[in-house]
């Protein structure tokens, strides 16, 4: 009887360990990676004139970027995205940059200093970054015509520029065929 009780408490302890382990694993395993379908995401554009949804870009190559006014590397990525817009918009690239700032005011102040020639949207409720489970700031996702994530870039470094451009060109080229 006593031996039984002992073994059951051990079993309970093992189960508790496993449960905690599972919860810890689940909280890190949710982030979107290559091949996953991009999460649904619908956000108002920065001037509030309309709501933009990722679903409406289906059939097009999308460069989705999550940025914030407090994020240092984002200042570097804006001129880069302007370049992408200038060079690749004509080939069908869609750029959507979503601010995760808690207040629209912060985002607007950033935009006044670092102007954007591409679509900028606000997600003050942080629904989209939660759905994508970003691993860093900024984070960008290259999404193909079928709506699948083809590349994820966490952070923005100088060496990412060539790689991102290459990945986009590959997808745009394939779509043209």
């Amino acid at each position: 009887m006593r031996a039984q009780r002992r073994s059951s408490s051990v079993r309970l302890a093992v189960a508790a360990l496993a449960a905690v382990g599972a919860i810890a694993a689940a909280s890190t395993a949710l982030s979107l990676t290559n091949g996953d379908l991009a999460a649904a995401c619908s956000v108002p554009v920065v001037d509030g004139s309309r709501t933009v949804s990722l679903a409406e870009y289906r059939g097009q190559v999308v460069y989705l970027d999550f940025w914030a006014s407090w994020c240092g590397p984002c200042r570097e990525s804006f001129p880069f995205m302007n370049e992408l817009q200038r060079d690749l918009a004509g080939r069908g690239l869609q750029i959507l940059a979503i601010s995760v700032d808690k207040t629209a005011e912060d985002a607007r102040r950033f935009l006044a200093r670092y102007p954007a020639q591409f679509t900028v949207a606000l997600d003050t409720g942080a629904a989209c970054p939660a759905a994508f489970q970003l691993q860093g700031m900024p984070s960008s996702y290259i999404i193909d015509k079928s709506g699948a994530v083809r590349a994820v870039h966490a952070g923005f470094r100088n060496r990412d520029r060539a790689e991102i451009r290459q990945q986009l060109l590959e997808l745009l080229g394939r779509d043209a065929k």
Partner: protein
Amino acid sequence: MTLAARLIVLAAVVVALLATAGCATVQPWERGTLAKPVMAIEDPAHETAQKLRTYGAKEGGASATGVGGGGCGCN
């Protein structure tokens, strides 16, 4: 209870306590909260300078932040 069983139970208790501790995970997109000026570890530079100046004036004889420099041998 055997030693192994005790260890397993102990490990479970420790892990459960750690898991329920008041640690919150700040997601990458929530770090703006930590970027607010009030979250800075140090005071703003001008405030630090002001405090040092006051402290230096108060403790001047005993040399507030540096080496005593009285020259009279009293410090």
